[in-house]
């Protein structure tokens, strides 16, 4: 019996291959997806929120906004698509802060699993939830008069860009969740992108209508270039300039917050 024990103690762990790491991430993603499915209230929330904004600007505010040569509904709706995944990310920071508070992160950190798996599994599950919410918002957009005018390929590329943008930002939200640690605070902080990036952008009104000091920021920040790229992809028009900027922003945000959040995770404690 003692021999068995000694052998057990001496057996070094199998090395962590990329395959095993992927399997860990899959396991965590499945757990998160089950959690999402079992809290339909939250899923409902992340669908209803962009839908309400869409309806408010389409029917209550939109009448006062005139953009020469453009139908406002086609101007507005691509921005709402992006808003859906941008605010959907708030769920990522909330869920991670909850996992920290519940002690789940401690449990995961005491297991021989890959460290990256908790965050990869988290962001993947949230990307799935984003896609689901996005489908509802697209349906509502069409219902209130939005139309895709470009080729199928371009439109699909636009939708892929929205998902990519949401995924990149979910790493930003993961960083917030791990940094503030408290679910309530995480939710508050998750509103920041709305005010810092979404409102001061071309999302709702053209940038030339904003004060001069705000315009340089508004014109070059990631939400504006991504929304402008989306409009071009859905409606037609020159797309290259905005598209490569949008993709660069996404890749940059993804890489920076990937590194930061993995670092925070390594040290994370409740």
């Amino acid at each position, binding site marked *: 019996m*003692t021999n068995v*024990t000694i052998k057990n103690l*001496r057996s*070094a762990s199998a090395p962590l291959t990329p395959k095993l790491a992927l399997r*860990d991430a899959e396991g965590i993603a*499945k757990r998160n997806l089950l959690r999402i499915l*079992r809290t339909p209230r939250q899923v409902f929330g992340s669908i209803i929120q962009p839908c309400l904004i869409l309806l408010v600007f389409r029917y209550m505010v939109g009448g006062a906004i005139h953009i020469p040569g453009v139908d406002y509904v086609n101007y507005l709706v691509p921005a709402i698509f992006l808003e859906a995944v941008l605010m959907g990310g708030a769920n990522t920071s909330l869920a991670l802060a909850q996992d920290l508070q519940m002690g789940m992160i401690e*449990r995961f950190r*005491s297991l*021989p699993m890959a460290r990256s798996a908790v965050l990869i599994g988290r962001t993947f599950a949230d990307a799935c939830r984003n896609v689901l919410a996005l489908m509802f918002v697209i349906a509502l957009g069409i219902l209130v008069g939005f139309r895709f005018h470009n080729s199928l390929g371009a439109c699909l590329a636009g939708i892929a860009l929205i998902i990519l943008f949401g995924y990149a930002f979910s790493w930003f939200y993961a960083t917030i969740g791990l940094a503030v640690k408290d679910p309530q605070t995480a939710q508050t902080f998750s509103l920041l992108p709305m005010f810092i990036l979404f409102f001061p952008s071309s999302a709702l009104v053209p940038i030339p209508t904003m004060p001069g000091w705000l315009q340089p920021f508004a014109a070059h920040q990631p939400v504006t270039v991504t929304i402008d790229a989306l409009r071009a992809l859905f409606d037609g028009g020159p797309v290259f300039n905005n598209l490569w900027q949008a993709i660069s922003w996404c890749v940059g945000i993804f890489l920076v917050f990937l590194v930061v959040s993995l670092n925070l995770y390594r040290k994370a404690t409740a």
Partner: protein
Amino acid sequence: MTAAIEVDEVSKRFGATVALDAVSFTVDVGTVLALLGPNGAGKTTLVRVLTTLLVPDSGHARVGGFDVQKDARTIRSMIGLAGQYATVDELLTGRENLELVGLLYHLDKELYRTRAQEALERMSLASAGDQQVKTYSGGMRRRLDLAASLIGQPPVLLLDEPTTGLDPRTRNDLWGFIEELVAEGTTVLLTTQYMEEAEHLANSIVVLDSGRVVAKGTADELKDRLGGNVLEVRVNKRADLDRAASLIANFGNGPSRTNPDLNQVLLPIRDGASVLIAAGRALQDHGVALDDLGIRRPSLDDVFLAITGHTTDTHAVEAGNTEISR
């Protein structure tokens, strides 16, 4: 064989708080060590160091010969941890929780399924296995948490206050269960605030107080430090309590303790029967009416009091009423 766990001069502070102060001890393979101490003694901090969750400021800790800082992942693959607060996912079922942990131990799917089923049965959770954990009682959660720590069949098990909050029957079941695991060769480090638990389960005991090891040894060794026995006097009238304490004080080899709720005086003594008789006579001569008079082996409670000057926190209520007279 060598030690399964070695703790060597481990220190850890949080700001001004010294949570661990040069703590050293070893746990032999296949034995149980109980880490005994009141709230804030540093028990959880030490468990977190040994489970690679916390890096010590100084000192070394090894599990199975591997260093907690250098070989963290190897250690994680051979330990099972049940933390102080059950960490199970409320929205998953008991089975899903266990299977997830099994997967993260990198077991094959077949294997973690079988083990999850076995663990549910072993912890009497089989019938609730497919219910979401949010419907579980506190005791069921703890058992599930413990089951999760066993999925990897780890040779070293770390249990942080495994029986706190359990009813006596469940606690007994759990003790039996830990004994089974040890019989199979598992090494266990458990923390507890219950003397009884340490006495029942542990081969050796380390007493922590404010981050320092204040005593270590077997239960018997610790009791011997107290130098023998305890004289227990129960007076009939509470008014006689202090007088009784001072009448017998000379027979003791340490300060006596009075416990007004029980009309009780406890006095550590070296000799046995002769002191009993002499003390009984002294009390009788001065007209102190007695309900009970006897000698018993000291409990770990007595030992803890003698070493640290206060009782364990579990007995805080009692301790509040206990005055130490000199």
